[in-house]
């Protein structure tokens, strides 16, 4: 969805460089529209003021993290788990915690017949 966000900014000289490189020369300035699209993806309703603020701040933060593009990572794999655990499993047993359904429902904003009530999906 975001692949197209900055395509409009692409200029000819950069296209000769590697594909990824083109991205990085173009990607870091977040426009108002970009912020709105992101907010939509993240399911956040933002005020106009927040949209302005985030487009400025996120741009600044993304500029800061761009220093990673210059790092030589040749031959290195990404780390997903730091202590080297793999495929942690346990017996699939029923454990009795003693919770009553009503205890677990007490924080639910709206219930009906002991079920969580949500708004309709299609208007």
């Amino acid at each position, binding site marked *: 969805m975001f692949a197209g966000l900055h395509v409009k900014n692409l200029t000819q000289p950069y296209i000769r460089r590697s594909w990824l490189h083109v991205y990085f020369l173009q990607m870091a300035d977040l426009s108002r529209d970009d912020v709105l699209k992101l907010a939509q993806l993240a399911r956040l309703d933002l005020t106009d003021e927040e949209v302005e603020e985030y487009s400025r701040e996120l741009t600044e933060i993304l500029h800061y*993290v761009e220093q990673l593009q210059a790092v030589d990572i040749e031959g290195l794999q990404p780390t997903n788990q730091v202590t080297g*655990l793999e495929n942690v499993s346990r017996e699939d047993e029923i454990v009795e915690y003693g919770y009553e359904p009503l205890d677990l429902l007490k924080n639910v904003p709206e219930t009906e017949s002991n079920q969580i009530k949500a708004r*309709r999906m299609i208007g």
Partner: protein
Amino acid sequence: MSVWPSIAELSEQVRSGKVTASENVEKALRQIEEKKEYNAIIVTLAERARARAKEVDAHPAGRLAGVPFIAKDNFLVFGADTTAASNILRGFEAPYQSTAINRLEAEGAICVAKANLDAFAHGASTENSDFMVTKNPYDKTRVPGGSSGGSAAAVALDMAPFALGTDTGGSIRQPASFSGVVGYKPTYGLVSRSGVVAMGSSLDVIGPMTGTVEDAALVLDVIAGKDDLDATTIEREEAGYSLNSEDVKGKKVGLIKEYFGEGLHENVAAIVQQAAEKLKTAGAEIVEVSLPSLPLALAVYYILCPAEVSSNLSRYDGQRYGYSYKEAKDLHESYTKSRGQGFGKEAKRRIMIGTYVLSSGYYDAYYKRAQTVRTKIMKEFEEAFEKVDFLLGPVAPTSAFKIGENANNPLAMYLADVMTVGANLAGVPAISLPAGKSDGLPVGLQLIAPQHQDRALLGLAKATEGALV
């Protein structure tokens, strides 16, 4: 001088009947009330604590018998409100309890209050709390650090002998440094995260904040170890963690070169250098060690952490718990309005960054690259630990800053974590120890050990604490 004796002594007093758990609870509640103006505490659990104290007094047993403690408000304590200092969780009553709290209670400890934090632990000052700003125990115009600022201030103000904190990028160590207490970040996975509000799941750890290393070691000994409810937990070291003191003689300690560069306040640098000198006098060998990629740690962190935050905070959808926008006409509006109105500024900022770096087309360039640079940083830690037993450096570039000083500059606020995030990325244990004062404000010293060397690190920390006196 603290109003509390050591935790080992206090629990011994309870077991032997010299003091009662109830007296300890009342004392803690009094301390909290007297120092209310610091805004360290979100809510006291007076009724629950008094009831628990009666139970303990009926059968005074356990290694923490009748010892009051304070939990950061992102720990679920059964029957108590758990808000993570966020509006979206205001009024959320924990239906179950975190493993760490269960283990503490099983040894007779009593939770007396929940401490303030930056909402969802996003911050380095507690200014991001949706409720209030905690004040530094040494200067009320300054921050206590964060995100575990309430816990740090509470211990510094003697509200309880210990508090629990969480550390994702420095949130135990940095406030410990700013508030003049001991803050311990264990090896990743040593303490179960079950029942703690998740922030960055590959980085989050739980640890004690105390007045002394000995107290931190005892609390860690009680809460450490595998838990079926958290698949990332690791085995504890056989010898345990309490009551150890290492002889520093012959130990090789590496000063992290990269942490002593530009941006480090000269007073902080001097205090850490002096501490290194004292360790040397005590018999340690001090050498300089370079981890050339460490300055990249903060950039890596500010990709990985928001990515994990955006995923972990997706559960707050206004349907199952937490704030819910009542006038929504459909599910989508219910999501966007509940989240938009319920989350504070920093939570939204991180969700937005995280969503961006994880979105299709940018994932490889940001997230995957950050995970790979993380590997590079981990390798440099491993290489450093081939040369030295421990690493030493400052905790933060400065002492506590003024309330409001960084409020409009998120990037400047993020820089407060620049010397702590490395340990989270590498999963290694680290501790912040009070090392001196700069213009009357506490300054901490950071010691770091290889993964699974928590016992040795606590031993060195205890010896260092002794050498600094």
